[in-house]
């Protein structure tokens, strides 16, 4: 593909005035496409010593692609990366490391079966051993991390894994640190602690690129911000003087009000789902511990919590997929909609077409099929109606569902599950990874069905989303409900503490 400078420069240059701090990283005109999708379109970025730069953008804006280029994982189609004036050979993780660029990936990229020490030294010329363990312990102490150098990585908590991933970079003496959505898996207090560490590292002369889509965090910790939209830089400026609304307009590109479906309070009626001290165990681990939950018609119950605290078990229990080992589940709903967290694995059949996926709940009805066959034209007309109603981005109902983007998948799932006007809706991480338009659609659908009289359970890691949608909020920690709040008495700080297992009664 021929790359041409289509737009007139990506962003206004932030004044060529001489700065005291030296430029450590200079990115010019990075372009990277996957098929016909341009993930990065002539992206420019500069980073100075001791600076924390936020890289802000929606899911799919090209943040992860850009850092994959920076760390040599991807080879860009065009553009250059220079570290302290020296160009970096493209597509070489080793060269990026040698130049001082280190990334803490969202998934940390650690080896679970390796010890802390082995993970830290992997890729250096050492293999571990007593002396090296000692050195690793010293580096950990210097950074203020409490990590046992001999502990296997699988035994660490998420916060500790993140410290380990950062320690790995510090041990190598890397001074350009890139953190890819580091707060996605942290509770608010853990995130605050991370911000402290980041500030300390920056004060020590290291430069940090910090990727997020949360405006609050940009304001909390970053000096400068680069905003990406559809793979292009739309802003590159100081954070001071920017407010959240301005940033969100830049990030989303339209009126930020789209984000706020701003639900009014619901109008609770009879109880459709009741869990009483329900306990679920899986593989010898107690996933849910005596959970009580009541969902009424016309209300949204939000379940806040960090992933891995029993959300999966709760979702499947509420949806009636698993039975409680102890306690009870009572449900009077005649139709239950389940929007699982793992859309592709548990929600849809990737190899089947959009129209087949859309028919999965209804194919046995006499309107759709005869005991011996399915009327495919009726299936297609159902699909056409739902594609229209849910703006599913697909031209042909027969195209494979696996080829859709995250937002498209969720629309298919939503269309199929909600078309029957269910009395109970269980939605797990319903907007994770979606673009703004799809997220807004998901939220307004959930609110709309609540107003129609359905009971809705929303399980989400995104506290802002929970607070915005819910009539009641439960906090889940280690499989137990550790807090319950009603609309009007939401306390963001306290809920955040409880998500991290703190804040006692």
């Amino acid at each position: 593909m021929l790359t041409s400078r289509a737009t007139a420069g990506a962003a206004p240059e932030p004044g060529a005035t001489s700065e005291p701090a030296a430029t450590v990283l200079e990115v010019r005109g990075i372009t990277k496409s996957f098929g016909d999708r341009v993930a990065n379109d002539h992206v420019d970025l500069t980073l100075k010593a001791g600076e924390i730069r936020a890289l802000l953008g929606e899911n799919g804006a090209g943040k992860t692609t850009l850092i994959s280029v920076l760390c040599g994982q991807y080879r860009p189609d065009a553009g250059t990366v220079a570290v302290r004036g020296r160009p970096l050979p493209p597509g070489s993780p080793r060269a990026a490391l040698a130049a001082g660029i280190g990334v803490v990936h969202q998934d940390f990229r650690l080896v679970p079966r390796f010890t802390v020490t082995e993970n830290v030294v992997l890729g250096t010329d050492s293999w571990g051993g007593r002396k090296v363990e000692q050195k690793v312990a010293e580096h950990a102490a210097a950074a203020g991390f409490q990590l046992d150098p001999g502990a296997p990585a699988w035994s660490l908590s998420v916060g500790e894994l993140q410290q380990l991933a950062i320690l790995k970079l510090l041990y190598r003496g890397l001074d350009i640190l890139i953190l890819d959505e580091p707060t996605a898996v942290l509770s608010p207090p853990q995130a605050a602690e991370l911000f402290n560490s980041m500030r300390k590292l920056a004060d020590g002369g290291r430069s940090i690129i910090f990727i997020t889509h949360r405006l609050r965090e940009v304001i909390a910790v970053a000096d400068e911000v680069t905003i990406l939209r559809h793979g292009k830089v739309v802003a590159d400026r100081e954070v001071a003087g920017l407010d959240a609304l301005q940033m969100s307009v830049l990030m989303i590109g339209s009126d930020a009000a789209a984000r706020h479906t701003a639900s009014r309070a619901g109008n609770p009626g009879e109880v459709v789902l009741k869990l009483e001290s329900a306990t679920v165990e899986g593989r010898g681990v107690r996933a849910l511990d005596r959970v009580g939950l009541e969902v009424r018609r016309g209300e949204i119950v939000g379940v806040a919590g960090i992933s891995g605290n029993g959300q999966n078990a709760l979702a499947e229990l509420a949806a009636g997929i698993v039975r409680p080992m102890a306690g009870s589940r009572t449900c009077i709903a005649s139709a239950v909609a389940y929007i699982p967290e793992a859309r592709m694995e548990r929600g849809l059949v990737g190899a089947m077409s959009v129209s087949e996926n859309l028919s999965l709940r209804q194919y046995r009805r006499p309107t759709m099929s005869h005991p011996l066959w399915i009327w495919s034209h009726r299936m297609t007309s159902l699909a056409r109606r739902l594609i229209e109603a849910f703006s599913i981005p697909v031209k042909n109902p027969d195209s494979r569902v696996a080829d859709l983007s995250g937002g498209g998948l969720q629309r298919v799932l939503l269309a199929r599950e909600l078309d029957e006007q269910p009395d109970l809706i269980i939605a797990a991480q319903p907007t994770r990874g979606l673009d703004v338009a799809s997220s807004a659609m998901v939220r307004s659908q959930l609110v709309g069905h609540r107003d129609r009289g359905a009971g809705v359970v929303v399980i989400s890691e995104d506290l802002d989303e929970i607070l915005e949608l819910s009539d009641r909020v439960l906090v889940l920690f280690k499989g137990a409900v550790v807090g319950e709040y009603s609309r009007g008495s939401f306390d963001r700080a306290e809920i955040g503490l409880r998500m991290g297992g703190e804040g006692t009664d």
Partner: protein
Amino acid sequence: MTFWLNSVSVGIVLGTPLAYAALGELIAERAGVMNLGVEGMMLIGAVVGFIVTVRTQNAVLGMAGAGVAGAALASVHAVMTVGLRVNQIVMGLTLTILGAGLSAYLGAGYAGRRPGGEINAIPIPVLSQLPVVGSILFNHDVFVYAVPFIAIGIWLLIYRTRFGLWLRAAGEQPGAADASGVPVFLIRYLAVIVGGGFAGLAGAYFSVVYTRAWAEGMTGGRGWIAIALVIFGTWNPIVVLVGALIFGFVDGLNFQLQSVGVPVSSHLLAMMPYVFTLVVLIITWTRLRRRRVGMPEGLGLPYEREAR
């Protein structure tokens, strides 16, 4: 008494090629590449080793040729699975079929011939004179003597060197290894090719050292047992070696029982090692499922850097 002594001694000899093949497979699997072509590589090693020995009248050259032949076949596997990311299971099965066919073709004129060169037992002075253990343990050829040192050497390589750390990382989490600057592809290539060399040696041990003859399909499924041994040994070279010797013993028992004329069908006796494999696999697998050690997490999964 002599019956058992003979069984143990034969078991050691029969266990040795299994150990070589299994240790080779272990190296490849530790790097994350499953190579089900062990049987094919053994057969190629057996035939090439035999041909080279016949042609040169030198068994050492024959063994070396077998190692190279096994490695060459393995490099096909490496190119296909590591480079082109072909499904490892399909490719491994293909390799076995290819090895069986190719070895039969190459060895067509060699059945019934004598190798002309030999690898003889070297009794170890003093030790071989010890009562009982002397004849069992210290009257073997150099490949038998070497195998415990090789197993320990591989253990040290895996757990006590930088290369070993990189090897394990490539097999566990290739993405993490790559991000850390470990040359994942190079390591996977190397591991598969070295592993193939071991399988080639194992095959030639049968044709050049042990039976001193070539026959089509002469490894008789022992390549598959070697693969099972790696699982049985939970990817630990020491345990794999012990397992190989136990299997060798069971295998040898079959011959010994036949020679003393046990009134059981020889076909049933010949099944023993395979039945034993089945039992051991069931036991190991239930054990594995309960523990956090064992199978490399990236085993069988092709690694692609720009996968999205």
